[in-house]
């Protein structure tokens, strides 16, 4: 028979076994709020009397909420914690596992953790701080109370600060005894800490901050002996007193990975020192099939001589410089009118305006509106590309085979149009279709044609704009548009100037056909650019598709082609265009340089490194540069 006492004992044992939570003494109580829970943990049930003591701050976060890395990014702040007793623990150090990047509205960015994170804390039981207890107390467990005063900020889009005091009683004795739950948990998070250079002796690092270039200073981190994990590899910079960091771009090259980060001096009037201490963490690198992070803090050489005046001031961002950049943007835009395709369209459109049915002024205003409006559209696309991690900048578009293919189609269509085989963008010579909408279309069509030409004069204004933000990008592209529309703006303001143009005559069709060859030459220029971006088979396919496009346009222009056949041929034209884009993307030789969702980009180095010479110079390795100073070895 079972006695009541036995039942009570069994029940008490069952309660003991089923009691929630970890072993007592190795964690503080959870402190909870609607967005998070936090507690202090120790891996030791019984800790050694002296030596390292790795503690942990364990956070569990509600979905969508995040806490911060040591650099919180554009907003927020990292957890701040002080530990007591200082006479035993000294000043423990918070350690930072691999962070994630969070994009916030307005182009802002935060770095931190979501879901669950344990910040390891490197503490040390100072020698002699825990004296052996007197003999009469040796039978009692010896412990000391650890107190952590914690402030942290948790954010979704909104942010909420919390402050807690976390305590736990740490037993100390010999032999030490690890906790079976918190020990492995801390081990797991310790393993997620970035390695130091000393821990990866085969990896070499070189860094340089180039403040002497046009546009924002560029911080380059070059890692040799590692590989990129496409879509995962990223770079996080620690806060710096002198500089704000922009969005990093990562590029693989033979034997390593290079990061470029646009930097913005916080004080434009203060010269940068010759060396600057910069801390950074590169995440998700790969070596021998192993993934790891690398954290480095060291002095970085600042290359600034070219940009500094004898007085030591940096190249100014004064109204004078801005005026110069705007002037360059405008002149660069105007200069684009002299490039072969734009010139061909301009001449054709000007002659069309001479006999415009709706009046010269209206037609010219329509063309100018089309150009400036399309420039805003291109600015929007460039901003989106920039945010998606695709290099953006004037000429950077030529790095993307699909875009180059699109430009090849545009110039081919213009050539076919001037040869009288397709009806747009310019109406056929002598056609009554010279209404305002045709001029608007011609204006819109001008912009993609202009994109094919990397005018060096535009690189600085566009690079500057991407270093500043979307509003500046729109402003600069708009000014380029006004420069590109200059001939039409002149006719809008002074329509009488159209009389200076020769009256249309029998020579006009011949001239248009001649201009068609100018546009055709531009198609070859694009094919030449493509020859360095896609495989030979892909290029042959693209050329074949363009030939097919021309053949269908020729068939469609034959007399008697009407009804369903005409529609079928239009569909054929579209299919050939789509085939060009498909083959360009399918046969690209190099993998996409950055992963759209994971790694953000910056415009200037990409644009300057790749246009116009590098992408068109087959002899140049993808990332050839002079050896850099400040090389640091892992060993």
């Amino acid at each position, binding site marked *: 028979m079972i006695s009541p006492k036995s039942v009570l004992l069994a029940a008490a044992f069952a309660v003991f076994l089923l009691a929630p939570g970890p072993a007592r003494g190795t964690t503080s109580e959870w402190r909870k709020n609607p967005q998070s829970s936090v507690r202090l943990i120790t891996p030791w049930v019984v800790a050694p009397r002296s030596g390292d003591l790795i503690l942990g701050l364990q956070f569990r976060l509600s979905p969508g909420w995040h806490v911060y890395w040591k650099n919180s990014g554009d907003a927020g702040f990292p957890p701040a914690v002080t530990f007591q007793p200082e006479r035993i623990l000294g000043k423990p150090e918070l350690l930072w596992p691999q962070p994630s990047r969070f994009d916030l509205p307005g182009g802002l960015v935060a770095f931190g953790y979501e879901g669950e994170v344990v910040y390891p804390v490197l503490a040390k039981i100072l020698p002699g701080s825990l004296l052996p207890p007197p003999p009469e107390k040796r039978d009692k467990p010896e412990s000391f109370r650890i107190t952590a005063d914690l402030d942290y900020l948790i954010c979704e889009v909104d942010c909420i600060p919390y*402050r807690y005091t976390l305590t736990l009683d740490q037993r100390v004795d010999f032999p030490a005894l690890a906790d079976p739950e918190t020990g492995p948990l801390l081990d797991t998070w310790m393993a997620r800490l970035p390695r130091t250079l000393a821990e990866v002796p085969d990896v070499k690092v070189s860094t340089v901050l180039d403040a002497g270039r046009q546009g924002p200073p560029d911080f380059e981190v070059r890692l040799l002996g590692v590989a990129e994990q496409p879509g995962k590899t990223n770079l996080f910079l620690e806060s710096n007193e002198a500089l704000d960091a922009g969005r990093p771009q990562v590029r693989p090259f033979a034997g390593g990975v290079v990061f470029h980060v646009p930097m913005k001096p916080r004080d434009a009037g203060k010269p940068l020192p010759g060396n600057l201490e910069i801390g950074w963490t590169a995440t998700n690198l790969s070596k021998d099939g192993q993934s790891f992070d690398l954290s480095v803090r060291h002095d970085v050489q600042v290359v600034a001589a070219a940009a500094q005046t004898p007085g030591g001031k940096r190249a100014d961002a004064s109204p004078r410089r801005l005026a110069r950049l705007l002037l360059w943007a405008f002149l660069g835009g105007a200069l684009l009118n002299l490039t072969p395709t734009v010139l061909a369209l301009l001449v054709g459109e000007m002659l069309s305006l001479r006999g415009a049915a709706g009046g010269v002024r209206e037609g010219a205003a329509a063309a100018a509106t089309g150009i400036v409006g399309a420039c805003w559209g291109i600015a929007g696309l460039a901003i989106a590309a920039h945010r998606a991690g695709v290099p953006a900048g004037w000429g950077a578009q030529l790095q993307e085979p699909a875009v180059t293919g699109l430009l090849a189609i545009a110039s081919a269509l213009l050539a076919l149009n001037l040869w009288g085989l397709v009806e747009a963008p310019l109406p056929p010579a002598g056609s009554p279709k010279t209404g305002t909408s045709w001029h*608007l279309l011609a204006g819109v069509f001008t912009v993609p044609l202009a994109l094919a030409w990397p005018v060096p004069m535009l690189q600085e204004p566009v690079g500057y704009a991407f270093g500043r933000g979307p509003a500046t990008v729109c402003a600069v592209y*708009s000014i380029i548009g006004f420069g590109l529309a200059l001939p039409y703006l002149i006719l809008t303001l002074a329509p009488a100037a159209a009389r200076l143009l020769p009256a249309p005559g029998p020579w006009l069709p011949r001239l248009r056909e001649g201009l068609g060859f100018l546009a055709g030459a531009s198609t070859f220029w694009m094919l030449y650019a493509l020859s360095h971006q896609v495989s030979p088979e892909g290029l042959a396919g693209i050329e074949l598709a363009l030939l097919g496009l021309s053949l269908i346009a020729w068939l469609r222009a034959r007399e008697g082609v009407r009804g369903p056949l005409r529609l079928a041929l239009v569909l054929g034209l579209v299919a050939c265009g789509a085939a060009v884009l498909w083959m360009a993307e399918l046969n690209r030789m190099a993998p996409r340089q950055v992963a759209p969702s994971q790694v953000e980009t910056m415009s200037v180095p990409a644009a300057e490194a790749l246009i116009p010479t590098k992408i068109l110079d087959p002899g140049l390795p993808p990332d050839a540069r002079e050896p850099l100073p400040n090389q640091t070895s892992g060993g």
Partner: protein
Amino acid sequence: MYSKTIRTTLLGLAALSLAALPALAAGSVGETAPAFKLKGADGKTYSLADFKGKTVVLEWVNPNCPFSDRHAREKTMSELHKQYGQVVWLGINSTNPEHRDFLKPAEHLAYNQKNGVNYPVLYDETGAIGHAYDAKTTPHMFIVGADGKIAYNGAIDDDPPGRKAKVERVNFVGGGLTAAKAGKSPDPSATKPYGCSVKY
């Protein structure tokens, strides 16, 4: 009629381009402060040009941000404004009207009155001026010198969690205004701002 539309569009695009131009001057200390003309919660229009030759403090605010709210309740800014009476102090709220933090002018005025906010708060609903200054947090502080250039850009003080007693904090804006009064440059001239992100 059609041509009038075209001309209107062209003029509209030109106006848009001009509106985006302030962004060209955005940013760092030592650069010209981007111009603006914004409507205040009090219904008046405020322009930076109106204060030419004066020192102007710009404070990005959002009463629904705990940091902005804490400083309003602690009267960090109001007392500083009172202390430096000759300085123009303007709050700028760049919160997107679609965001739940957005306060209508009457609500903002009531909040200001309750917390003793003794300076105008301007509405930058499009966020254009916030982006022009590269304002990231609430609060994010700028001192515009009498020469029209940005003299300080950064945090209000050195105590993001608000742990310290008010007198123990290093108030960067207070230090900057004292330096400006003595004809010197603020030191530091730039710090990392803290707080909630601006709700663009």
